[in-house]
């Protein structure tokens, strides 16, 4: 059976995610992209997005040993697709939908303005986030999508997909 080129999985981490194993995941993904012949600016886009998505999971994801988060990188026809999936408490859904819908409707110019304004005038959260991670991922990705699907009565699966094309 032929493996679909559009969905060739290059890397998959499904398990506990913390600041202890994140450097290993970052290094592995960087080496993988290097071995695929990708140059530094492209690797930086993808790996920086990985770091932001992973740290959002570490800071805000619902910890659940039985249903841990997932990070993956796949090759697609146009380039590479980074996927981050984790459980979130249902109370976070309304915020996430509203925040992401707003960001995804913005033009690139407006996203850049928001990034620069938040960088220069925004404040840091208690957990050390700057409110810039998803803005940067959406700005740098060629395509971005998300899904929130019920996992049980209290939690939902939050899945983010960011696509990057080396030629763009």
């Amino acid at each position: 059976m032929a493996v679909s080129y559009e969905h060739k999985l290059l890397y998959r981490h499904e398990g506990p995610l913390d600041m202890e194993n994140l450097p290993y995941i970052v290094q592995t993904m960087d080496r993988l992209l290097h071995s695929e012949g990708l140059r530094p600016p492209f690797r930086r886009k993808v790996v920086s997005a990985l770091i932001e998505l992973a740290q959002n999971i570490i800071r805000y994801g619902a910890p659940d040993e039985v249903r841990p988060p997932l990070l993956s990188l796949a090759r697609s026809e146009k380039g590479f697709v980074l996927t981050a999936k984790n459980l979130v408490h249902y109370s976070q859904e309304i915020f996430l939908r509203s925040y992401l819908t707003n960001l995804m409707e913005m033009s690139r110019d407006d996203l850049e303005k928001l990034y620069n304004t938040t960088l220069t005038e925004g404040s840091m959260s208690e957990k050390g986030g700057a409110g810039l991670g998803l803005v940067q991922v959406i700005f740098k990705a060629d395509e971005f999508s998300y899904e929130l699907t019920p996992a049980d009565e209290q939690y939902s699966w939050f899945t983010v997909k960011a696509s990057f094309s080396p030629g763009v």
Partner: protein
Amino acid sequence: MSDLSLSENLYIEPTFTTPEIRFEPSKQYFFIGGNSYPENSLKFYTPVLDWMRHFVEKHSPLPDQTIVLEVRLEYFNTSTAKVLLDLFRLFETLQEKGQPVRIRWVYLAEDTEMEDAGLDYQVAVKVPFELVPLNE
């Protein structure tokens, strides 16, 4: 690292997720290099910013010497990007006190993403900000 403000130099060893920090006032040379994606950038950089604020407050300007901050980062997260701007603002304050300063943003020549990040800072900060591309 309990009382950084009393040290003449500031040195923090690098880890996989945090950079080497080497601030050496006697050499007019300040350096940040490596990865910077701590989980909580504010927590990691607060002692650095406190040390720098103390230095700015106590420093007597040396008009014939330039204090250089060299930034040579690999991967860094967006919260680090924000804290770096706070650090650069302290170099602005140092300059306002009459101390010549210069920030050197060092990156791989082909890494246009890092060049763009440097260009954004160059616009945002009011001190001489030099982009230094390196060939591998």
